[in-house]
């Protein structure tokens, strides 16, 4: 499961007590907690901790912050800051008597470049994160070099949500070089990851469970993505798995699994798999599809997917064999 692969140092006790705190570097005088960077701070977020409060420094795990939004405000560009978000027990099938019931219920905008937001969870599900409004966006990324990992996104008690949205316009929005890894998006999420002119993104090792509208989406009316890598993800019966429209060029889409129940039936599944219409030079290889080789028939490889003319779709795998052509 994805969140099991989050690289997080344990134990959380700071060893080597010989050095005093460094002036001007928050958290260096703490007796617990680890640093992952020469100058960076780790900000702890745990709304279930008995002593959580957004008015704190946030670098001491025994006095964590209440919200991710407060932690983002404390981060500085490229200092190596990490926001470590502790697990909660808000899962719908959990035992409420166990406590820890407060989920991450926030819609945050990341404007600080070069930070990591990490869910620290004992299971592969990740740390549960919900929006706070109907069709809300949990994390909006407007800064470059941001990593998001170890979260489980769901709409919670609201109607629909976009889990992660990134946009670059070169004027005020700089969402680019985004990494999303080891996350889970559940069947209540409308759009798991939406990208607009965000280049050089790295989206890997995530699970997209039956997302209602899109797994990964670059809208036709928007600006396409380029030079991005979408690899080793599982798209399980999303309405549309990967829709890279609006002119998406030079992307690598490899080793993903795409189960589509319409295609598997087989029934019409037009462009519900991977669609790179309007793009150019995308490399799409070694992906697994729950469809038949080109027949032609409803739900076959050509129905489920559409390639751009200059794409290279190589050795993708279908129910009855491997493909040798670009889908049409």
């Amino acid at each position, binding site marked *: 499961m994805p969140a099991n692969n989050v690289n997080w140092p344990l134990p959380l006790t700071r060893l080597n007590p010989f050095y005093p705190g460094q002036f001007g570097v928050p958290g260096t005088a703490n007796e617990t907690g680890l640093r992952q960077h020469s100058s960076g701070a780790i900000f702890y977020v745990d709304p279930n901790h008995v002593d959580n409060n957004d008015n704190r420094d946030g670098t001491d795990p025994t006095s964590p912050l209440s919200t991710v939004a407060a932690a983002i405000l404390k981060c500085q560009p490229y200092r190596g800051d990490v926001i470590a978000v502790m697990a909660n027990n808000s899962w719908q099938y959990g035992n409420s008597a166990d406590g820890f019931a407060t989920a991450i219920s926030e819609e945050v905008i990341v404007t600080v470049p070069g930070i990591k937001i990490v869910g620290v969870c004992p299971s592969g599900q990740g740390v549960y994160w919900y929006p706070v409004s109907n069709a809300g966006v949990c994390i909006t990324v407007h800064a470059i070099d941001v990593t998001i990992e170890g979260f489980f996104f769901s709409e919670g008690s609201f109607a629909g949500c976009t889990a992660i949205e990134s946009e*670059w*316009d*070169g*004027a005020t929005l700089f969402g*680019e070089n985004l990494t999303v890894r080891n996350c889970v998006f559940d069947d209540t999420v409308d759009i798991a990851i939406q990208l*607009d*002119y965000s*280049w050089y993104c790295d989206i890997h090792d995530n699970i997209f469970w039956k997302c209602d509208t899109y797994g990964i989406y670059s809208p*036709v*009316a*928007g*600006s*396409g993505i*380029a030079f991005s890598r979408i690899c080793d993800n599982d798209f399980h019966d999303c309405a549309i798995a990967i829709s890279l*429209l*609006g*002119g998406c*060029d030079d992307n690598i889409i490899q080793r993903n699994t795409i189960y589509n129940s319409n295609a598997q039936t087989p029934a019409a599944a037009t462009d519900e798999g991977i669609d790179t*219409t*309007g*793009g*150019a030079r995308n490399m799409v290889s070694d992906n697994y599809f729950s469809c038949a080789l080109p027949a032609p028939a409803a739900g076959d490889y050509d129905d489920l997917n559409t390639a751009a003319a200059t794409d290279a779709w190589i050795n993708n795998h279908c129910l009855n064999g491997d493909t040798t052509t670009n889908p049409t």
Partner: protein
Amino acid sequence: MSATQKLMHFDIDLELAQLLVENGFTTPRKIKEATKADLKKVTKFSAKKVDELKKKFDRG
């Protein structure tokens, strides 16, 4: 990478990319949403050349 460099990815030259960015057309989305009249005003292109320019960015 600057907005100018990113626009040049869409097969336009440096001068035109700079002109577009200077006038607020920093993304393909903004160029798609612009009217032909707006683009004509900025680029001083003929109607035909404006059409060709829009096509480069409107590939969906």
